[in-house]
């Protein structure tokens, strides 16, 4: 016999699909089958329930480079001591955990005068900067499904990164005002490469790599009916730019989805700034919205929780007792590069694999703790690795979808015996930090 769990949330990408059906064995220990999820999502569930390869107790790095098992209590003590004694600790990650844990973590950060930063630092942080500069006209994915007849994918490739995005929301679904589905929508893809998403497009603008800003500004000028200089604009023929502008203006409801192709290429926040302004300009002719293709399933949530607690969405510096924010100064990569911090705490992210080598070396030099269910390049260089239960599989909690809609994740199986969750571990650390700070 087996048990079935319906309406399960997939804790993998920012699409946060909420229609999964998971079958477990009778005791609720092993996952037998996952329906509706895409290949990556299903793999996350099946992989989590295979306990044979998982570390179930914290480990500490020894002098000879090997790891030795320690108890959770020892790990809590080490973490609390490290954070309480540091002059400027950094607490980074937060994207692959629930909002409840983030909130506890921020309390620790406030007590210890730490920097709090999430993975937006290496993906959509630039989006947040642009939003502060010029605002954002946005909508939910439900509106896209029901209304959108012009869809732009700029510098993103959902065919691989958000596999069910296109079928659930953006290209194929038949909605209230979009009864004919894909036939009713015009898809524009802007990408230097012919990606799998581009193969579904009605128009593919093959922009010259690193010139998105020029193309966006040119589109804005074209929407206004202004002249442009040169026959080829950022790799695209001038007529095609004017045609694309007409196509956008002729729709009833349009949406721009953009990804790391624009947020992390030359120009960064300026690219998004221009994209948002293009959206605003198009609203003079029709209805247009813009949505960021967030990667981790709860990176949006981290921005939300930081936002309501401290007023800033990432790279928050609490070292002086009040919140300050300036990516470029208080971002984790910058402080590691400039050697501005003296302790590193990582939860729910893998800077060891994504940061520049200089920063990775700095992490390995500092007192450091990594909280992660897996063994990752980060856990391999941190002094202490604390394994925890998988959020969204072994413990529930609140998560935010890429369009800022909160969705409650569900627990489907039990974690391995005696394993702590992120929240339990952080609460224990908080208790100990309070004791240490009281003296």
């Amino acid at each position, binding site marked *: 016999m087996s048990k079935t769990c319906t309406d399960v949330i997939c804790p993998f990408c920012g699409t946060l699909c909420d229609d999964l059906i998971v079958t477990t064995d009778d005791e609720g220990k092993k996952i037998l089958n996952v329906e509706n999820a895409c290949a990556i999502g299903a793999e996350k569930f099946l992989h989590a329930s295979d306990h044979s390869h998982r570390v179930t107790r914290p480990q500490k790095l020894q002098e000879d480079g090997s790891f030795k098992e320690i108890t959770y209590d020892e790990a809590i003590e080490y973490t609390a001591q490290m954070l309480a004694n*540091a*002059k*400027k600790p950094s607490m980074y990650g937060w994207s692959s955990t629930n909002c409840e844990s983030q909130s506890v973590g921020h309390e620790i950060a406030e007590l*210890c*005068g730490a920097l709090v930063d999430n993975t937006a630092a290496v993906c959509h942080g630039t989006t947040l*900067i642009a939003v*502060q*500069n010029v605002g954002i006209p946005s909508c939910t994915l439900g509106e896209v499904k029901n209304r959108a007849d012009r869809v732009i994918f700029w510098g993103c490739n959902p065919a691989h990164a958000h596999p069910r995005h296109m079928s659930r929301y953006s290209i194929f679904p038949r909605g209230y005002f979009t009864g004919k589905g894909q036939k009713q929508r015009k898809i524009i893809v802007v990408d230097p490469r012919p990606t799998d998403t581009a193969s579904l497009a009605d128009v593919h603008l093959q922009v010259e790599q*690193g010139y998105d*800003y*020029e193309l*966006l*500004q*040119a*589109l*804005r*000028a074209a929407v*206004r009916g*202004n*002249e*442009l*200089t*040169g026959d080829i*604009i*950022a790799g695209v023929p001038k007529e095609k730019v004017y045609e694309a502008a007409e196509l956008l203006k002729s729709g009833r409801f349009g949406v721009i989805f953009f990804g790391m192709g624009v947020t992390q290429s*030359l*120009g960064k926040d*300026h690219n998004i*700034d*221009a994209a948002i*302004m293009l959206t605003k*300009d198009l609203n003079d002719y029709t209805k247009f919205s813009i949505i960021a293709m967030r990667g981790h399933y709860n990176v949006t949530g981290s921005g939300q929780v930081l936002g309501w607690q401290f007023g800033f969405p990432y790279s928050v510096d609490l*070292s*002086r*007792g009040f919140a300050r*924010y*300036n*990516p*470029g*100064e208080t971002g984790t990569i910058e402080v590691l590069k*400039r*050697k*501005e*911090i*003296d302790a590193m705490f990582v939860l729910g992210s893998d800077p*060891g*694999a994504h940061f*520049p*080598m*200089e920063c*990775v*070396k700095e992490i390995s030099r500092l007192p450091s703790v990594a909280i992660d269910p897996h063994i990752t*390049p980060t856990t*391999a*260089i941190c002094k202490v690795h604390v394994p925890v239960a998988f959020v969204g599989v072994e413990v529930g909690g609140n998560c935010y979808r890429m369009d800022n809609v909160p969705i409650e994740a569900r627990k489907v199986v039990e974690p391995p015996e005696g394993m702590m969750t992120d929240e339990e571990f952080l609460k224990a650390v908080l208790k100990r930090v309070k004791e240490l700070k009281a003296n």
Partner: protein
Amino acid sequence: MDIVKLTLTKVPELYLEAENITPDHFAGKTAQQIGELHVHLGNTTAKISDYFTVEGKGGATAADTKIIISGPTDKVKYIGMKMTAGEIEVQGNTDMYTAAWMAGGKIHVKGNVDSFCAIGMTGGEFIVDGNAKNYLAASYRGDWRGMQGGKVIVKGNAGSDTATFMNGGTIDIGGNVDVHLGTHAEGGKIIVRGNAKGRVGGQMVKGDIFVLGQVERMMPTYILKGEEEVELDGKKQMFHVWIGDMGERHGKRKGEIIYGKIYVPSGKAEAAAPAARAERKKKLTDKQLEQVKEAFKGQEPTVQQVRTYIYDTFDIDMKPMQVSRLIDGLKR
């Protein structure tokens, strides 16, 4: 004018936040009182005298006070923040936010400065003999007011995002600037005596930018209006005038639309073809590959180990994906 001499004697282990080093805070104080003022390092608070020796005394008012700072001040932030009058002279380099939100007086840094210097400046004079990094005279995040008045002179080069949201004042850069010069500007005057990297005046509403060297690639949304004789440095010169940004909103005066203007000296045509941006090579030579192979012979190295080794020995920062492909390749 009374002079206060600060000499940094202890290099801070992290970075020092010293927004109290301004003539405004020093005015009317003795050396000892100045030494008692706070500096901050991470979540700890220290005194100026913990890091600096203080000589002299402050003048009666800020305008009567001059501060001379020497020693290795590379790791000191916020010098001269929000100062309104008086003078500061720094013998060496300074870190971020030097002259930030400065309203009056004069700061002269003889070395280099880091990013975010002179942001939101409203008045006074800021002179740098060396180079400045990014966001010089720009706005604070989310603010629509960058530099609004005063004068910034950098003798060397400036980084990217210089003068974002500028709406007044003058910036004079002796060397080259990186991308995004005068983005969102709504006024003011920028002079670049070297070359500009590109995206000059993106989203500019109003204002003047002079580039005396070359613009690597002009924005497609700027249109060549013609030639004009303009006075610069007291000399009349011929300039090609480009107007834009055509994608941005613009105001009208007497029925005529006011655009942002970029002036490039006549005869110095814009670099026609965009210089291909130099891609940093991230490949190992055959010889280096051999060396890596030799170093990890008979072992099962992790990706991170190999990545560290390559970074340490060849100074090449490879992505973990590339490294793992490389290991697979070597195994075969």
